[in-house]
């Protein structure tokens, strides 16, 4: 009986995705179910729409920039939290995780006002900075888990064998942190690429990233172009998550294993 309930609920969770994918192949703009045919025209539309193309490029730069900053900064922070013998580690941890807690509209408006006060409304820098702040908690969390599981004895052993601190870091610590770093990278990219609310506030038509561009489109037009765009998003996401689970066992991150 549990199985039946779970199947129904999982169907509920995935139904919208299925609908989107089906609709994306619909030959006409008027949606009908079951679809009247099969067509790639909306994919063509999506991929050639100049605003989407510009927004995709923006997304690329913003995410690249955010990840390039957040990964090292977050890793350093994770190491400091675990090994730095801080007096109030939970306080610092809470601070670093605080952007998760702030409502998107509050952060978005705040960054907008900040940008205006600095005369930087059109700049991408504020947008990237905001992304760094939003992505940082995920990075810190993922890397911290890995650092915690890192046996300090291994680093001490390397040191006793003559390796300098930098060499220990490069040859022992970093390789052992790889799962955590990989998870951090994954989270950072996915969170940044999909970030909507804050980016809505902090960008304009020139600098906007893909989700914002999609939002603008949906508000104005009703054809299935967005369905095509969404399907592309969904496919990419599923592929990434499946790979991540294969290689790092995501279950271990979320569940307690016996």
């Amino acid at each position, binding site marked *: 009986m*549990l*199985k039946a*309930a*779970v199947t129904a*609920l*999982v169907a*509920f*969770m*995935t139904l*919208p*995705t299925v*609908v*989107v994918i089906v*609709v994306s192949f619909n030959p006409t703009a008027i*949606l009908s179910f079951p679809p009247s045919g099969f067509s790639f025209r909306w994919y063509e539309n999506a991929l050639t729409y100049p605003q989407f193309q510009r927004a995709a490029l923006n997304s690329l730069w913003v995410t690249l920039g955010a990840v390039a*900053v957040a990964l090292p900064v977050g890793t*350093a*922070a994770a190491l*400091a939290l675990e*090994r*730095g*013998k801080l007096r109030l580690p939970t306080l*610092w941890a809470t*601070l*670093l995780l605080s*952007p998760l*807690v*702030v*409502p*998107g*509209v*509050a952060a978005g*408006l*705040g*960054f907008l*006002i*900040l940008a205006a*006060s600095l005369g930087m409304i059109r700049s991408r820098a504020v947008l990237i*900075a905001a992304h760094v*702040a939003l992505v*940082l908690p995920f990075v810190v969390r993922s890397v911290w888990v890995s650092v915690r599981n890192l046996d300090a004895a291994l680093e001490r052993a390397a040191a006793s064998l003559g390796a300098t601190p930098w060499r220990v870091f490069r040859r022992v610590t970093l390789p052992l942190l790889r799962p955590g770093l990989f998870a951090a990278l994954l989270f950072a990219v996915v969170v940044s690429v999909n970030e909507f609310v804050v980016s*809505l506030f902090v960008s304009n038509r020139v600098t906007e990233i893909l*989700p914002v561009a*999609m*939002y603008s489109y*949906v508000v104005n037009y009703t054809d299935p172009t*967005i369905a095509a765009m*969404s399907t592309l*998003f*969904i496919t990419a*996401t599923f592929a990434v*998550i499946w790979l991540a*689970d294969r290689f790092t066992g*995501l*279950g271990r991150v*979320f*569940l*307690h*294993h*016996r």
Partner: protein
Amino acid sequence: MKLLLAPALAVIALFAVALGCLLQYSVLEFVPGSLQTGGFTLENFRTVTTPQYLGVIWDTVWLSAATTVLTLVASYPVAYMLARTGSARVRSTLLVLTLAPFFTGAIVRTYAWILVLGNAVITWPIPMLFTERGVLVGLVHFSMPTMILMLAAGISHIDPVYERAAASLGARPARVFWRVTLPLSAPGIVSGSLIVFAWTLSAYPTPALLGGGKVQMIATVVKDRGLDSFNWPGAAAFALLALVMTIALLAGVGRAGARTA
């Protein structure tokens, strides 16, 4: 080693400054038609307490509460199976299906509901799109992955031997669930519910797109006033309200977690 914390703190400091701007503007006077601001005033907060906006706040709280309860009921079975299944394949499948929505972004997920609720798939007997009902469905769907993960984490910490012990003492499966599993999963329920409630209070894309302007929540008010009317001070006051409510709720999570540790 401690210095390694500095860059991260700098980022957080920047974030704090942004929030500070919010605080600053919330007490400045709005000059209509421009981004300039007048002097110190509490007018923005007074606006928050007008019946119109109190109504919005109440609607938001009510909708968030309804979302939380429905999400809890819908998520528990999935979470239980996820935590208790012996089959690695089932666990993997459920995990992927639960996690994936997290990563497909709000717009994609909300658009999907525009299609389903908008008579693209089936014709609804009563209007769903652009109504509170529709927004509720979208919000529940949006919150389920979070709730499932938090519940599953809590349930997976319950030693299965307790369920066996209860059975050996004569409790049939429904009673085992009611007397043992459910109480022992309380920490997961509390933290999951508080988080879903907090996030739903400030939800934007779902009410905006599925509500079509007819369903107003705190977040939509912030966007309307801030981006459409350029009333930054007015919007800031509301944003601050959302922030304070969220922090208060999540502080509750922290304490609930500590109490059961």
